[in-house]
């Protein structure tokens, strides 16, 4: 394959990574933005989404499309319910204290991971893709399913943007984010908003995981990479900025794809990590974040 098509392939692979990463990082960013909670267990909600997707789709063997569709609907709902429970039982009792919740979510990380190991086991398992259509380009064929991941992510990001900027729910979330006390003085039940945001953040990670699991197997340790990459994206893009999250996910995903294809995946990770260091030194609020007042 000559350079041009090779690059196109690398960019497409990068876009798939970006699509999944943007959804995952958005969940992390919303939770931090609104609740000021650094959710170290975010990657485990991702893993849980993938593992549940396998469990759900394997309940209807022989019908990959139906199994996948059920997983896409049910897995995020179950993960959201788990997150809601964790919020009620742990974060609320700590009064959302920033330091205490970091420690607590580290604990959640291990609890969820060990539960997955106990009930799901150490194997990596694949979920069959819902369809096997291949798009034939002049130079190579490309998975139609991978393209649909990109499309699904765009739709979900647009939906999130719409909810945040154009609906009452979004208004209430933003009010809580800017000024919790004044929000309460205007009748906003801040603790219910927190519970909803935490569940929503986890559900975004779970959706991303369901989308990725047909091309990357489910495994009980698979949450660590998305956690790290989400932190990278959120730091570069700026916390609480939807636009920043999308752009940073594109930068990280595409450069990861291109550098991995032409050089090595390790070099891609080194560059991403250095980029974070540079941002933290020269623009700590992130490329699109607003500096604290």
């Amino acid at each position, binding site marked *: 394959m000559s350079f041009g098509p090779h690059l196109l392939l690398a960019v497409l692979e990068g876009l798939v990574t970006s699509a999944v990463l943007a959804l995952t990082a958005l969940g992390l960013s919303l939770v931090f933005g609104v609740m000021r909670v650094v959710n170290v267990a975010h990657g485990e909600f991702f893993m849980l989404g993938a593992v549940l997707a396998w469990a759900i789709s394997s309940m209807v063997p022989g019908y990959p499309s139906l199994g996948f569709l059920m997983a896409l609907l049910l897995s995020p709902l179950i993960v959201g319910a788990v997150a809601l429970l964790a919020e009620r039982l742990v974060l609320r009792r700590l009064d959302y204290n920033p330091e205490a919740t970091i420690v607590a979510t580290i604990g959640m990380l291990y609890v969820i991971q060990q539960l997955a190991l106990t009930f799901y086991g150490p194997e990596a398992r694949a979920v069959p893709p819902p369809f096997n259509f291949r798009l034939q380009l002049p130079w190579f064929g490309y998975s139609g399913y991978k393209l649909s991941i990109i499309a699904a992510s765009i739709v979900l990001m647009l939906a999130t943007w719409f909810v945040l900027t154009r609906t*009452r729910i979004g*208004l*209430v979330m*933003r*009010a809580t984010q*800017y*000024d919790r*006390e*004044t*929000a*309460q*003085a*205007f*009748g*906003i*039940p*801040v603790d219910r908003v927190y519970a909803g945001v935490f569940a929503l953040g986890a559900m975004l990670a779970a959706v991303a995981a369901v989308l990725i699991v047909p091309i990357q197997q489910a495994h009980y340790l698979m949450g660590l990479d998305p956690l790290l990459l989400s932190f990278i994206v959120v730091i570069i893009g700026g916390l609480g900025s939807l636009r920043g999250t999308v752009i940073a996910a594109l930068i990280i995903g595409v450069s990861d794809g291109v550098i991995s294809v032409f050089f090595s995946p390790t070099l891609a990770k080194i560059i991403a990590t250095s980029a974070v260091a540079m941002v933290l030194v020269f623009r700590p609020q992130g490329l699109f974040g*607003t500096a604290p007042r």
Partner: protein
Amino acid sequence: MSAVLTLSGLDCFYGEVQVLHGLSLELNKGEVLCLLGRNGAGKTTTLKAVMGLVPAKAGSIRLGDRELTALAPHEVPKAGVAYVPQGRRLFAEMTVAENIEIGLMARGKGKPTRDRVLDLFPVLRQRLGQRSGTLSGGEQQMLAMARALCLGPEVLLLDEPTEGLMPSMIGRIRETISSLRGEGVSTLLVEQRLEAVLSVADRVCFIENGRARETVPASSLRDNPALVRRYVGVG
């Protein structure tokens, strides 16, 4: 006169530090009661306690026959109390229209429409799409009041509404307070300077070290500079 809002024996703490010590006061129906006192006396904390934003360790806060300390903070506005915080605390990143929308979401049934509130502050009508953080100081104060009046409150809490405003603006805010009084709204007004309140307040309650010291008719203060000097210092 009947009291709409009654605070009695209120104790409030920030962590271990006690800030209000058995504070008691009564706000009568349709009056403007001014809380006057030095910086750090506990005026803001008193208003926050009414809103449930600072918990009351002891004492009671009654609105009519409802005990406000038993409510969650977000239930207080629906009970009929609106709050204009010190420093305005607008949602600065949001537009004027969005700030007003948040006020409207908190109102009870059958309360004022957006149009009625905007009629009080026509300037805001031309600024609906503007980010509220970019308004001038006076416009921001009007927006903060408009946002609170969206609730159609029985009791209005105003924390230093004239702080940092130009004299012409101060007059404008004062007029609004007087006209609300005419509509039967009861107002608890916090100020640090006497001249800001003389023309609008019915009674003045002096706050010192977290205690309500004495409450006197506003009209009696002109002839009693010693009292004012004692609680607020010069002027």
